[in-house]
């Protein structure tokens, strides 16, 4: 059992713009100009029509589609943090752009700062791109005040 947070492999050719974007502080998503479809996770081509896709920067703004509060038993790296929140955020650009991430207060903080009673489905969030490990970044979802 791994003691550190498991990391995503970032050396997959067709995903390179996604991971590069995160390293540069941007969230980039695949878009098909032929059929207008956005998609995540990245695929080799458009999952709707099979044509090539382009990478476009997205706003990082979205809403909470769902969330859960994780309780033990968990992997050792997460044990000191439990219970903690994990959400699925739906990006403003498209209802099918949904990404998993932790939920943070508006001012940022640790992934176990908020409790379930602080967050509900439909709340506005914005991506805070943070390191998961050496050279690997991922968005966390920061609540938008108001």
């Amino acid at each position, binding site marked *: *059992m*791994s003691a*550190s*947070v*498991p*990391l*995503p*492999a970032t050396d997959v050719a067709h995903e390179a713009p996604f991971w590069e974007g995160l390293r540069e502080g941007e969230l980039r998503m695949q878009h098909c100009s032929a059929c207008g479809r956005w*998609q*995540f*996770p990245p695929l080799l081509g458009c*999952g709707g029509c099979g044509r090539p896709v382009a990478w476009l920067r997205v706003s990082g703004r979205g809403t909470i*589609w*769902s*969330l*859960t*509060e*994780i*309780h033990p*038993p*968990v*992997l050792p790296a*997460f044990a000191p*943090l439990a*219970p*903690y929140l*994990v959400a*699925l955020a739906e990006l403003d650009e498209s*209802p*099918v752009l*949904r*990404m*998993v*991430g*932790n939920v943070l207060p508006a001012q940022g903080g640790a*992934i176990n700062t908020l409790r*379930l009673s602080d967050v509900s*489905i439909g709340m506005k969030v914005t991506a805070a791109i943070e390191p*998961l490990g050496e050279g*690997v970044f*991922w968005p*966390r979802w920061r609540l938008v005040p108001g």
Partner: protein
Amino acid sequence: MAFKDSTAIVGVGQTRFGKGLAESELELACQAIGAALADAGIDPAEVDALGSYTMEETPEFEVARNLALGDIHFFSRVNYGGGAGPGAVGQVALAIAAGIAKVGVVWRSRKRADPSSRVWANTPPVIRDHWKWSRPSGLLRPVDEVALLARRYFHDHGEGRDALAEIAQQQRRYANANPAATMRDRTMTRDDYFAARMVADPLCLFDNCLETDGAVALVLTAADRSRDCRRRPVLIHAFSQGLARGHQSMTDYHRADPFDGSSGVTARNLWRQADFGPADLSVAQIYDAFSPLVLFSLEAYGICGRGESADFVRSGGLSPSGKLPTNTSGGGLSEAYIHGMNLLSEGVRQLRGDGATPIAGARTCLVTGCDSTPTGALLLRAAA
């Protein structure tokens, strides 16, 4: 080639279910298969087809030589854990219906009671498969993935933990009547349910299946041959697998409508083949690694309308006297978790009239695989 009703399940067998069983997975597999062949009254040397799950660790050749099976003409394995069971049965049935094989065995044997054997606990330090998109954020276990869908479902259709409690309690009541169930002696009240520890909110301990050691096996043959077997045959009326367009296993929330997924694909193809519809089902065995999968599947297979399954459950729909008695052995939540194979054996028993809680006059049964993975389902029918 007409598939409908051309094959039958003629034998079921199982080991005892429990934690820390002494036997190896191979011994358990052979015990269950031996019992199923004895139940069918078929000589092991007649078996010429084998089917199981890709996650099964007992090889076909070990099973075959340890049980003195005959020459084998067909063997297949189906992927995706709890989504595999109906597919494993259906593929062997297809081989028999096509004339490639004559007698098939489908089995699943596992020793999962040891926590170190859980798949999620063995997440690698660098994730190369599709779990790379979720596990680094701490969404670690299958229950976490189902919890996201359950909370969304409650948001869309109304708070439903009381319905999950009713599923858990009803299946426990069935288990309390089943001498083979690991939970036969342990009752569950509504207070017990709501006092249980949270695992992935809104899902608590009792929304999770049991981790069990044990094995279950089925014997299949052609319908015309089945009339000479020891037990009343149960016909395989229809079969489909399902993998929805754009599906991602267990984390299937990137499509526009995560509640119309691989179960819906399976269901539409199943009912297209069938001579009867959802309202004609006598019983159902619905894959229940987690209680919300029962809610989602009731809707996907057309037993309830969209958003109506919680009320169906609350009104006692799953009970012996309800509209559709479901998971009548206690299922994965309260009998044993043999990756859904014990749902298949219970479906057969109900149509033979020898379930632990027999449903009077049962003629038809739906058996489903996991709602969250590429999946499959069978419609079973009692022979006339």
